[in-house]
């Protein structure tokens, strides 16, 4: 395993400057991802979003007397798949423990989680930040129940509790404290999310709360031992993760430089103010009294089962990226852009299939993505299908149209739809490649501009003007390369 070692170099671009010198930020993340499944981890209720209160709740979810948990095999498979995607150790025997505490959205008075023996052990995630590749260690992944929701703003004296989310399966993915900047943390979460979405084990939708992070931050002078950390809970966007880390690191540095010390505590990120603040419930430190859940036998499965799941895994971002670079000759940068989302990568591959990969990449990234971003559309909602874009690329490749005309064609397909080849035919957009016709046009321009022809002999850059004239006279349809060649020859430059 190749995680970035604790900085031995005296200087790193990630250090933060304080009044008393440089500071190093140490960040660890605990990411909670909702497992993509139809029903809950230990009950048969739906995991669907936005249902009326307590309608996705069974007797088991509501912790009625005498109720018992029954585990969902697909949730187990999803956790294993995720572990494989993290190149992690899969534990064929793991144990469910009860984490005991009281809260209205925790109906059993305990959460079923995994404490000492989680389903997945150590793994790693590769990220790229500012062109630099870094391997972030993953400590473990375990399955646990999500809690319900309390609404505190409906009444001055009462809270309203909805258990729809209670019992939904979560994967908690704990990183090692290998991250050294807010950018790295953001890249890590982005990559993790991408892996989950590729695998289909979580939709990673942060707006819906299906992916959230607890961010652990501490600071120290480079080379010193680790500082006291604070945990910022439930940060639910990549942007906020960055902001929270920046604020918290600065907060801690200021305190220490002023002569104070950091209290280990749990904090919340206030998105409106861009600050972290201490959670007011200052109870005794939680004593969760973990013990193995006596209603659940240990979770066991065979290595064969793991291999079976492995054989059916989709290609992961890193593999796809490597393949795109090798098979299609793409640059690392372009490959990164394309594999960020599986849907984008799949789209690109359809366009690139049987065509020049670089050309396809250029069109997908610069034309298509550019346009999608401008209109705030996702690739799934692209008005131009991969087949249509592929047809445009074909038309360029066969010299039927020029690059510039292709852009016009793209615009037409975007706004009106239709088959690109047919459009080219109907609207007479075909490129003129017949050298005889081009020669005729070139001759006409040369004949009409004898002074310029003379000037061109001394100043070869005037070729551009001639090209422009020929293109104009052919309504933009002449093949620019051919025009160039013929002009050069005839002008003698």
């Amino acid at each position: 395993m190749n995680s970035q070692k604790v900085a031995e170099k005296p200087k790193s671009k990630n250090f933060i400057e304080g009044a008393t010198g440089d500071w190093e930020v140490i960040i660890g993340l605990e990411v909670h991802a909702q497992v993509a499944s139809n029903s809950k981890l230990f009950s048969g209720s739906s995991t669907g979003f936005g249902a009326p209160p307590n309608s996705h709740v069974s007797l088991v979810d509501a912790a009625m007397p005498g109720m018992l948990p029954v585990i969902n095999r697909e949730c187990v498979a999803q956790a294993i798949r995720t572990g494989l995607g993290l190149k992690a150790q899969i534990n064929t025997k793991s144990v469910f423990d009860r984490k005991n505490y009281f809260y209205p959205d925790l109906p059993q008075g305990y959460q079923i989680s995994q404490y000492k023996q989680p389903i997945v052990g150590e793994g790693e995630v590769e990220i790229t930040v500012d062109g630099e590749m870094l391997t972030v260690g993953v400590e473990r992944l375990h399955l646990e129940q999500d809690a319900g929701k309390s609404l505190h703003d409906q009444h001055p004296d009462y809270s309203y509790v909805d258990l729809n989310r209670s019992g939904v399966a979560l994967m908690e993915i704990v990183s090692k404290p290998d991250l050294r900047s807010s950018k790295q943390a953001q890249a890590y979460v982005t990559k993790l999310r991408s892996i989950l979405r590729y695998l289909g084990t979580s939709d990673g939708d942060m707006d819906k709360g299906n992916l959230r992070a607890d961010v652990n931050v501490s600071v120290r002078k480079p080379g010193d031992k680790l500082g006291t950390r604070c945990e910022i809970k439930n940060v639910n966007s990549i942007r906020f993760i960055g902001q929270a880390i920046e604020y918290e690191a600065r907060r801690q540095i200021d305190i220490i430089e002023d002569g104070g010390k950091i209290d280990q505590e749990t904090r919340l990120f206030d998105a409106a103010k861009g600050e972290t603040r201490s959670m007011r419930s200052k109870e005794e430190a939680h004593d969760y009294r973990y013990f193995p859940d006596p209603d659940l036998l240990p979770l066991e499965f065979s290595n064969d089962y793991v291999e079976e799941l492995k054989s059916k895994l989709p290609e992961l971002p890193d593999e796809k990226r490597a393949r795109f670079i090798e098979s299609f000759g793409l640059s690392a940068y372009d490959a990164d852009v394309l594999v960020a989302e599986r849907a984008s990568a799949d789209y690109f591959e359809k366009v690139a299939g049987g065509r020049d990969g670089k050309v396809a990449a250029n069109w997908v990234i610069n034309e298509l993505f550019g346009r999608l971003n401008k209109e705030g559309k996702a690739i799934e909602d692209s008005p131009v299908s991969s087949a249509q874009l592929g047809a445009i690329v074909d038309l360029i490749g066969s010299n039927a149209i020029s690059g510039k005309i292709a852009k016009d064609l793209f615009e037409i397909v975007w706004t009106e739809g239709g088959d690109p080849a047919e459009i080219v035919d109907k609207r007479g957009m075909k490129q003129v490649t017949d050298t005889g016709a081009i020669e005729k046009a070139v001759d006409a321009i040369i004949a009409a501009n004898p002074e310029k022809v003379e000037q061109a002999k001394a100043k070869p850059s005037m070729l551009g003007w001639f090209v422009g004239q020929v293109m104009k006279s052919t309504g933009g349809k002449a093949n620019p390369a051919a025009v160039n060649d013929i002009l050069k020859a005839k002008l003698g430059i």
Partner: protein
Amino acid sequence: MTDLTKLTMAEARDGLAKKTFTALELTDAFITAIEKANPALNAYVLQTPEHARVQAKDSDKRIAAGSARPLEGLPIGNKDLFCTRGIRTTACSNILGEFHPTYESTVGQNLWDAGAVMLGKLNNDEFAMGSSNETSAFGNVVSPWRRKGKDGKLSTDKLVPGGSSGGSSAAVAAGLCLAATATDTGGSIRQPAALTGTVGIKPTYGRCSRWGIVAFASSLDQAGPIGKTVRDAAIMLKAMASHDLKDTTSVDAPVPDYEAVLGKGVKGLRVGIPREYRVEGMSPEIQKLWDDGIAWLKSAGATIHDISLPHTKYALPAYYIVAPAECSSNLARYDGVRYGLRVNGDNLIDTYENTRHQGFGKEVRRRILIGTYVLSAGYYDAYYLKAQKVRTLIKRDFDEAWNKVDVVLTPTTPSPAFAFGEKTGDPLAMYLEDIFTVTVNMAGLPGMSVPGGLSSEGTPLGLQLIGKPFDEETLFRTAQVIEDAAGRLSVPDAWWMKG
């Protein structure tokens, strides 16, 4: 007409089949008896006569149509730990208040699907924690048995029926139902059966589903019947047991016809007598009871073997770590949020604390606190983990014994029924009631109590049989031999019917 309440379940089943009486007549006989007796005994916390009559009438239709199910028309009592759909279920605790489950326990449903009739919900120690039924929110259960005083005359001292299934054992012994459901976590079926001269079996852990039974200690709880005879217990267990997909600790194995083995006898059976059960200060009459049991089995063709179960004495302290630990977690759901009692406080925490203080009785609170303590930070290894390791050793003792013997015979309890208040002064004194029974729950084995004789005070004593996992059949045929030799024990005078 003979007093129908005096029939055994098997005899009643026979009577219905022969049309000697109807299911409705049978049910009415019990309803009348309960109305008369319950003020004196307090065995039932909820009587359900109308519900029972509806079931009985339906049974009569089926019997007439020739489609009688195994327990058709047979009236039973249901321990108030089993959730009953639309019918108040309290675990005999104030904290469940007027809880009306919207669901039926699997064991209960099995019985109603077999045609049984429910007369009502039976009293028990609160949340099944106790050995005398003196902790119920509905008040104590009085045993129908009375003991001879020092003057040799029957005393009117109120005796305990055992616990936690005290309502079940008292009701069966007093003829207030043909049989009853019960649960056993440390002895709560076997000890009450022993104290009331009835038959009680706690099957192997996993034999009956725990779904819909108010949970006390998940790795120890098991449902089972209390009946008047070994045959009646067999009839009941066959109907109660099943594999349940909703309880993944229940076992997917066919349920044998326990009645079929009753006459098979014990020829060649190897019976183990564990020396560690001969505790210091054991009373001579308990020793005699044990010797009688040995003699009966021997003369029926069994061979008797001395065995050692070296970790026996550690079962009780280990139990009093594991059971409270699990219960402290299982009872956390009783917080006044979703059902049951809520006692309002200044804020949420206050509300929780008030609710749970007022809702739970003293013994339950004590066990929750012990359980919370032994699981708390720094103590888990020393207590809970240690106790679970000792448990492995207890089971191992039995695994080794099964190489030598097929069944183990011991007394069920260290003494006969005691009077109210005699053991409530010191919690430990009460805990020691379970000294012979807890090993069985700790090892997950089946255990049965069958009446063996009377004490010098004229009150019942029971013999306990312990078997291999899922070998309830051996327990049943062995118990039958004991019952044939010892005879049935019946309360000589039905004083509770006299008002």
